[in-house]
């Protein structure tokens, strides 16, 4: 026993915790392919406020949007397929709402690639889809903390170079109230119609 270095004990603990967290996430979200619902319930203890860097390098808090509904998506600007699809879908969902209701919903994309995504590049990216959308980034630690709070995960995919790589990421959209409470989770396949219906229902009770 004496020969096992503390370093290895810590490493083993980290691996075990990571694996069990992964299992929890998968069991909440996955249901092994039999679950075809696009609007999911919310695991307990998910959510919370966050503070990240937004347009013009201003610090932005989730609670700045108190009184609104907030749709949060984790993505990155080098993403050519999933992220544009998600942002187009959210924009199409908003278009289904009356103008006055649209103003009560804030869409936020949080970067899972803080190494390459700057506040400026995120701003240009999300504004293409809708001038009211906001992109947030931060330090690697800040992003990791927010992702952890929302059970979102991401990883650099192998095969890239230092500046050219892809990031695999969970592609859920979270519907939050402005205080960090997660109301609903949308799968990537959720349609604008499905999202709009949930938005309308939650706007009515906001």
């Amino acid at each position, binding site marked *: 026993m004496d020969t096992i270095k503390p370093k290895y004990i810590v490493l083993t603990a980290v691996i075990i915790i990571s694996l069990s967290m992964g299992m929890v*996430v*998968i069991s909440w*979200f*996955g249901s092994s392919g039999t679950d075809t619902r696009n609007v999911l319930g919310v695991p307990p203890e998910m959510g919370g406020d966050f503070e990240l860097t937004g347009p013009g390098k201003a610090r932005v808090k989730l609670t700045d949007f108190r009184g609104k509904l907030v749709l949060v998506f984790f993505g990155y*600007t*080098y*993403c*050519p*397929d*999933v992220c*544009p*699809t998600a942002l*187009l879908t959210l924009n199409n969902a908003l278009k289904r709402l009356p103008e006055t209701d649209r103003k009560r919903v804030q869409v936020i994309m949080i970067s899972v690639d803080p190494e390459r995504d700057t506040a400026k*590049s995120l701003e*240009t*990216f*999300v*504004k*293409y*889809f809708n001038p009211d959308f906001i992109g947030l980034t931060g330090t690697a630690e800040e992003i990791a903390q927010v992702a952890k709070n929302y059970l979102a*995960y991401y990883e650099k*995919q192998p*095969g890239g170079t230092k500046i*050219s790589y*892809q990031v*695999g*990421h*969970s*592609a*859920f959209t979270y519907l939050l109230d402005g205080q960090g409470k997660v109301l609903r989770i949308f*799968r*990537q*396949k959720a349609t604008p119609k499905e999202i709009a219906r949930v938005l309308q229902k939650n706007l009515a009770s906001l």
Partner: protein
Amino acid sequence: MKIRVTMFAIASVLMMQAAVAGKGLMVSDAWVREGPPNAAALGGFMVIKNHSAKTRTLVKASSSGFGKAELHRTVEHDGMSKMMHQKKIDIPAHGSLTFKPGDYHIMLMKPKKTFKAGDHIKITLGFADGSDVTVKYTVQKGMGKGMDHSKHKMNHDMHKMEHMKH
């Protein structure tokens, strides 16, 4: 007679839009999704039909408008989305394969300019047997034909086109 002329006219229009690669291979509905002005990569989509009795295998793509092009597929597993680089993509004999958002796509990296809706982009598709075909892709906004209500119409047109070939 009148019907035949009409059918011929429809087929001619469709044939102009579709590129033929070697024997029995046809590419149609080729489009590239317009991206934000600073997009580092764009997605290219299309329908490839293989009318031959042999499986055809797509192995590469290239375009002079981009620094690099690769074949990719977005795969969702347990909520995690990943883009998987595809070394080869089989188009089954007498079958077809649709490249669409959230699925198979040509990943076009390092654009040499900002492409706008209405622009055309030439992409060369290379196959395992050494043959290749250059197809003109139209830059479009949004989700493409395959994911909206015109899907039905497209299938109908493709069906007609197939008829004309026999």
